[in-house]
């Protein structure tokens, strides 16, 4: 039951691609040196051979590294744009969203630059919806202030699943996903396990200190709707 509702919550981002148009999503990684946000974003790309436009500013590249083709694979060719200023990153992303041939436009912005305000995110979101290209804004060391992003995620790494053959080694990666604001579905928290061999994402409701059904129960849904 819980898994089914979560999949409905994530609809339109790969599980049922036709349900909702592609749009702007903002991701806040928990730490700069944490590639879980990149991995989650890559797992949600459409399964085509279209290229990705990847725009980075200088600090993001220095602190979090550059996307490595050996790790990402050759399915999507990458057009890499290395820039120094956040305003240039936003310009390049907006220009890229004029091109429908792309699988996604990914921008990495460090901190809270003044250029990245509500207007800028709104422009990006409207461009992305007009071109039907998904746009991901990865913001490191940033505060989640006012933004027009349709989905806003907080993503952190969790200790990975057990390795099937080696108890000492890390297995399939696990991430803590927190969709803390969404315009088109219900916010929620999940623990995702990414099965690399099958390229499949398994979601389970976040358990922890809270009860599983506290934010996920059917009673609340009835009350709301």
């Amino acid at each position: 039951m819980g898994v089914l509702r979560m999949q409905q919550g994530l609809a339109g981002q790969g599980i049922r691609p036709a349900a909702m148009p592609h749009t702007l999503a903002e991701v806040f990684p928990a730490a700069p040196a944490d590639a879980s946000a990149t991995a989650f974003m890559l797992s949600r790309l459409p399964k085509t051979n279209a290229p990705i436009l990847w725009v980075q500013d200088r600090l993001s590249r220095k602190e979090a590294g550059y996307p490595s083709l050996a790790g990402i694979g050759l399915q999507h060719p990458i057009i890499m744009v290395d820039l120094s200023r956040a305003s240039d990153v936003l310009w390049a992303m907006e220009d890229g969203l004029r091109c429908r041939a792309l699988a996604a436009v990914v921008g990495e912005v460090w901190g809270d630059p003044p250029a990245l305000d509500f207007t800028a995110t709104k422009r990006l979101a409207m461009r992305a919806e007009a071109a039907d290209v998904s746009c991901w804004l990865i913001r490191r060391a940033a505060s989640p202030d006012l933004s027009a992003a349709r989905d806003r995620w907080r993503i952190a790494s969790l200790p990975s699943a057990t390795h099937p053959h080696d108890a000492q080694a890390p297995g399939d990666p696990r991430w803590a996903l927190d969709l803390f604001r969404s315009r088109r579905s219900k916010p929620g928290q999940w623990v995702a396990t990414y099965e690399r061999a099958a390229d499949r994402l398994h979601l389970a409701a976040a358990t922890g200190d809270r009860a599983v059904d506290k934010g996920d129960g059917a009673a609340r849904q009835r009350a709301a709707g």
Partner: protein
Amino acid sequence: MERQGNAPPDDIPVVLAREGHHGPVIHAANRKARMDGVNPGARVVDMRAICPELQVEYADPAGDRAVLDRLVLWARRFCPWTVRDGDDGIILDTTGSDHLWGGEAAMLVEIETQLALLGLSARLAVAPTWGAAWALARFGPVRSICKEDEAFFKLGPLPVAGLRLNADTVLLLRRLGLKTIGAVMDVPRLSLTRRFVKAGLEANPLMRLDQALGKLAEPVASVEARPPIRATARLAEPIFDPSPHLPELCEDLCEQLKVAGLGCRALHLVVYRTDGDVAEVTVRTSAPTRDPAHLHSLFRDKLERINPGFGFDLITLAAGGVEEVEERQTRLDGDSDDDLHLSRLIDRLSAKFGPRSVTHPVLHQSHVPERAEGALAALAKAPADQTEVTKERPLRLLDHPEEVRVLYAVPEGPPAQFIWRRQTCRVARYAGPERIAPEWWKDRPGTRLRDYFKVEDASGRRLWLYREGVLGDGRGAEPRWFVHGFFG
């Protein structure tokens, strides 16, 4: 000495000096100095003795050459093939261009007028060969014009120095009693051949004579090949901003390209300034194109870099990297052409941020992680032979691996605790090692091997950690540990 404004009066002898073997020597002299008996090549102290009121300035041969190189480009307004000739001349291949200026005599007057407006005096001549033009411009009458079959008669009375020979050979010919080119012509070919059989071109009067008379080929090799397709805007008044004329030029150029069935990969916008300077802006495209709107958009923000000086009165837009392009039919279902849009996007980004910041990563065949990946310019074509890496590799790599401080080393495997970016990481699980040996055919001797570990700390962060070298491999001290990348 500055070219404009404070030119010395004509009645003062002025010379330019350069350093010689025994003190400064005369490089060039003005008319008054030459009339006073100062001749170039002599020592300045000797000439001071002859002419006590001599004013001496130091010459700037490198600056003169640079100015002459710019003037070579400036002279392209008269004909397409121009080249610098030595340190003091320009050769223009005006074949087929003179009628545009109303004949050769009118063209010479026009060139001299334009040069005079720049504050330069010039001696001009038109001749069928390079050598004849050289001799007539320096030793012939003012603005002399030599027809196809007149070279023999016109060159005859000129001194032998007009044969472009070095000073020793000129002296030798003078000692032999051959003072004019005509006298050299009268000497039987056989005797001249025998006397100068081993001499090079600079010291061989016979070969120089053949060049001047057109018996020996001497083509004008222009500085750069002329772009075959270009659009020109001649303006009545000098302007400072070329942008109002650019759409029209782009359309004109694309029309020419379309007629020829071609597309261009580069556009050179050249403005000819009224002060004789030339400024150029170049944009490049990733695929050959002839779409005027797209080409025009590439010049956005680029035109501000042109320094207009006192304005410019001639704008040319030339197509470079011309390739054949077949006419493409747009798809019937109304969908857009993906490849076209992608190449245009790359063009726009490269034009705005420079081609170096827009790259296309490709895989190379190497086990060393930083060599396994290279960046091509996105404008270039990607190689087809890329093989996917089968080992698990991190999603993100650092440009420069960052060293960690080991707190708690373990004999086998990665350190149990280490400090990286001022934070203590406690290793919970790890996989590895994967040993990557240095490439001896590329690396310097003494490069150490690397043992890579995939390490997961208590919070779940997965790092790619490596140890550089092994203890006791004889290549340095204690092995050091580095963070190289991050797994998803």
